[in-house]
């Protein structure tokens, strides 16, 4: 067993004639926060989609620990311990917050399919309390019976975080977790992410907001035009001339 939880090897992905990812090699150490940054259209979200099984790569291989993820369905990959929050929050808008968090908790407990229509939801005390605890963690407990679709975008994101955290994933992928948030909300989310960092969960974050990246990441990979141009600690990346040229431009962070 290697010290790397995520191991992406030689991944190519083409859309028609467009090469979205070329020769991606990415290794993420257990228990670290790894950020992927890069300009728009660099292929960051495509890379996440390849990891979670939404897209099949044209070449290459993705490993979680020593298990091959390539070629598996998204729900199988999730069951192996990969959870993801999306750029636009993917929640269950018609359900209550509590129910939203209970669904993934059932997935964690029961696997891909289980027929359980005799026992009442009310009797699933364990799952319910776990869900309430998670909502408390993200500061949404006071709204637990509200309908999720009516919340603000920031709250929806926090709900989605709670949903994923409930599964205690080995690998947690976050696609711009603070996009479209006000500064105040962003800071709350950073605090939350820092807190879960202490729990030793491995995270891969895609982010535009440099403030978020530099306050969270242990390592950073810079993606430009479908290729990783640089990888290192935040310090190294900050000072790398190639990065400055490709991404940060004239901006002096």
């Amino acid at each position: 067993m290697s010290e790397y939880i995520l191991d992406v090897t030689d991944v190519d992905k083409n859309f028609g004639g467009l090469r979205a990812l070329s020769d991606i090699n990415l290794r993420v150490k257990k228990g670290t926060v790894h950020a992927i940054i890069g300009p728009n259209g660099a292929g960051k979200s495509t890379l996440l989609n390849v990891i979670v099984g939404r897209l099949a790569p044209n070449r290459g291989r993705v490993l979680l620990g020593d298990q091959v993820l390539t070629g598996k369905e998204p729900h199988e990959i999730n069951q192996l311990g990969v959870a993801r929050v999306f750029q636009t929050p993917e929640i269950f808008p018609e359900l209550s917050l509590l129910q939203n968090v209970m669904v993934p908790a059932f997935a964690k407990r029961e696997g891909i399919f289980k027929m359980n229509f005799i026992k009442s939801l009310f009797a699933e005390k364990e799952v319910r309390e776990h869900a309430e605890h998670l909502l408390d963690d993200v500061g949404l407990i006071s709204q637990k019976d509200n309908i999720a679709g009516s919340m603000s975008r920031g709250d929806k994101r926090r709900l989605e975080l709670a949903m994923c955290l409930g599964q205690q994933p080995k690998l947690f992928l976050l696609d711009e977790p603070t996009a479209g948030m006000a500064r105040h909300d962003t800071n709350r989310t950073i605090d939350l992410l820092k807190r879960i960092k202490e729990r030793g969960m491995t995270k891969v974050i895609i982010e535009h907001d440099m403030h978020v990246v530099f306050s969270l990441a242990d390592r950073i990979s810079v993606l430009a035009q479908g290729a990783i141009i640089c990888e290192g600690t935040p310090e190294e990346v900050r000072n790398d001339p190639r990065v400055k040229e490709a991404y940060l431009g004239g901006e002096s962070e």
Partner: protein
Amino acid sequence: MTNTKIVSPKQDLIYMAILSAVVLTMPIWLQPFGAAYPDLMQKFMIFGIFAIGYNILFGLTGYLSFGHAAFLGVGSYTAVWSFKLLSMNVIPALIFGTVLSGLFALAIGFVSLRRSGIYFSILTLAFAQMSYNLAYSVLTPITNGETGLQLTQGDPRVLDRMSGIEANASLPTPNLFGIEGVGYSGFYICAALLLISFFIYLRIFRSPFGLKLRAIKSNQNRMGYTGFSTRPYLMTAFVISGMYAGLAGSLLAVTDPLAGAERMQWTASGEVVLITILGGVGTLIGPLLGAGIIKYFENIFSAFNETVLLNAFSFLPDWLAHPVASVVGLFVGEGWHLTLGLVFMLIVIFLPGGIMEGISRLWRLVTRRNKAEPVAGTHENKEKEQASAGEV
């Protein structure tokens, strides 16, 4: 109406008790409405079962099937065959009808559930129409085609003959160990089955399984990334609702032991969609209300004819009474579907959540006087429902 609260089993028992009381006293409280005769009340029960079963699929998962009449038909044919071959007892008929419909649903669902949305609807419609045409022509040896499958004096009825029950001069009637399947006793048999079916349906609604089905309706994409394979869930819901339809179909045969192909036609599938939407898709009790209301008005309106109308308008001068009667006549009797269509349009436009939404709006109107409660999500929900109603 959105069932977002997690309800304790105790509250559900109270719910069941109230429903049982309401259903079992129907012969009393329906009298002022002129609907307390057994035939109609049996229909309320049977279509109630059909509709709640349909609601498990459509209401919980959002998959709109346009072919559920096929399962109704399979249930009926199977029940009549069970009467012919085995016994006039309703128990084997109901069991075989339900199980065979379930198997049939398994086969149709296996193919149809490969697609979602409109394609799923079209696939189910195609299967139901195929079944209808098969029953009407090719399968005549089994279904007796146009004439419909009927009981005859000379049927084998193996089990009955073994236990020494012979048919006398008249045709035998389906019975539950001597309790006849027609008249008031027939109604009580149907009512008992409705209550059992409703109890199971309630459990499904309140269970983790039901929650997952609702999550599929809400966001199937998220469901995949949450680690659930959605197909087996949809498949199970489809088969369960097919079995409910099969049970309803066999009960139709119990109360009137003949089965015809028209029971499988797409209009019959459309009817259950209508009942569910009218009552309130995804609500617990809505489909029962829908079934009651549609069957009641079908009965009332289709009984009107020209003479009745002329009598009703006799207070008008003669030159006016005739035209008025003939215009109104378009909407009653044979043409009562015109009225149904209009009512349906009004409901979809103004009350997309059906009668249950109307009731909950009234309820809020009453309770708001007491406290200014936040009505979170109502607006968004309404838009959602309107969108889904538009898809219908």
